[in-house]
């Protein structure tokens, strides 16, 4: 799976969760998206895990700083296209 494909999939997933058109960049953080707070982060993680057939570790969920880090983890672990 390419990085571009992950971003395309994530844009769709985030747009569904936050109910608006969202375009993600590697440097996008929770502050840039209205509604992406610590609680909603759980929904984000859950959806990403299901979509790509992978699991994040608790430490990764807590320390993830931006979308770029999330994409790197997905690329390293994804089992679903």
């Amino acid at each position: 799976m390419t990085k571009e494909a992950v971003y395309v999939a994530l844009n769709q997933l985030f747009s569904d969760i936050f109910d608006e058109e969202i375009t993600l960049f590697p440097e996008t953080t929770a502050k840039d998206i209205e509604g992406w707070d610590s609680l909603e982060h759980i929904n984000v993680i859950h959806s990403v895990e299901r979509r790509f057939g992978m699991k994040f570790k608790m430490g990764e969920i807590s320390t993830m700083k931006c979308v770029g880090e999330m994409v790197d983890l997905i690329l390293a672990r994804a089992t679903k296209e």
Partner: protein
Amino acid sequence: MLFADLFFLYLFLPVCTVLYFISKNAGYRNAVLLLFSLLFYAWGDLKSLPLLLAAAALNFFLARRIAGKNPAAAKAALVCGIILDIGLLVVFKYAAFLTENFNALTGLSLSAPRIALPLGVSFYTFRLISYLLDVRWEKTPAERSFSRFLLFVSLFPCTVAGPVVRYADVSEELRIRQITVEDLYAGVSRIAVGLGKKVILADLLSGITAEIFGGDVASLSVLGCWYGAAVYALQMYFDFSGYSDMAIGIARIFGFRFPENFNYPFVCKTIAEFWQRWHITLGAFFRDYLLYVPIFGSPRKYLGLFLVWFSTGLWHGASWNFVIWGLYFGLFILLENLIGKKRIKKIPLPVRHLYTKLVITVGFGIFYFTEPARLGAFLAGLFGGNGNPFFGGETLLHSLSGNLFLLAAAILFSLPVVPWIKKKLEETPAGLVLSGLLTTVSNAALLVVSTVLMITAESHPFLYANF
């Protein structure tokens, strides 16, 4: 010995500062701080000092294992460390509470152990847990020097009642600290502000709370209940944010930049926002180390939320009212989450302010009443359930008229009025000079007035030192 104490402010802190600055070498400076930190702790609770030292030593050793090359040993060390730290809290803070509840459930009558709460145990165990997890998650390397680690654990500005300073916040500063004149000025100013909040506002407000809530709660009028709880909310704010200001200011003198703990919580427009502004370091702890616990393999939103707020409540004390208090706030955060931020934003601003202030006021009432019967009477009283009139007549009127200036000042300083005025003033060069001058004069005045009050009034301990 606490921060708002004459002996601390006019002897302990100056002697520590002088010895610190005449020591040229960074190692000696750390030694001075460590010595005074252990002295400070021993002064407050000598018999719990071995516990603090043992906890520091064990966590230091386990963290080295966590950072080691053997994955199985690292995992085992992490599990051991967390069990140890939580175990410390359970044994020393909750043993009696657990026994009483166990007895109530089973009908047995096991004798509840009477263990005095070791000073600062709630805070330092959390700081140790965060250290172990940060090392595990490679957010920070494990500390190599035990004396530096012990300094982190015992550091007197934050050991007794926070902020919940993490190792990663200060790991650089434990090695090298640059202290400028500006740091000293900012530190002393912050101490003066914190002292003023505590000694002038919080302690005087505590007189009103005692007057209103001290007697028969069931006889209070509806407005009396709301008034008492609102005053208590203000008292707690000035007490704890004052303490935090002092902690941050003292740390700054020695070159440590502690994270902020309060950010004008009463300006919040949602309850979630209130908790991003109140006791910030505790909220951040629960968010980072508990909210994403993988229950049944994955973090679960509502279970995580429940865990966080149940724990936040219980952390504040071994009593059910604190658990109810935590879950009460969790419930409103859940509701806000279900409604969604976008829809909440469409609600008129005054309505959002009114909603949050009412929820917070009731919350602090729940926090105040540790006895179930009195808590019940208070909750009923809020809504006229005790059959009392809406307006309480003489007592309330007397309290309001007698404390008009105090209450006005408390409301004014609980809102970001001073920063707003400063910002406006500092827009011009002349205003900048004036602002600096006014700040210095008012801080000096705060120090003098607080000192006079400390000499004349009886001492009031910081409330958060009991948690």
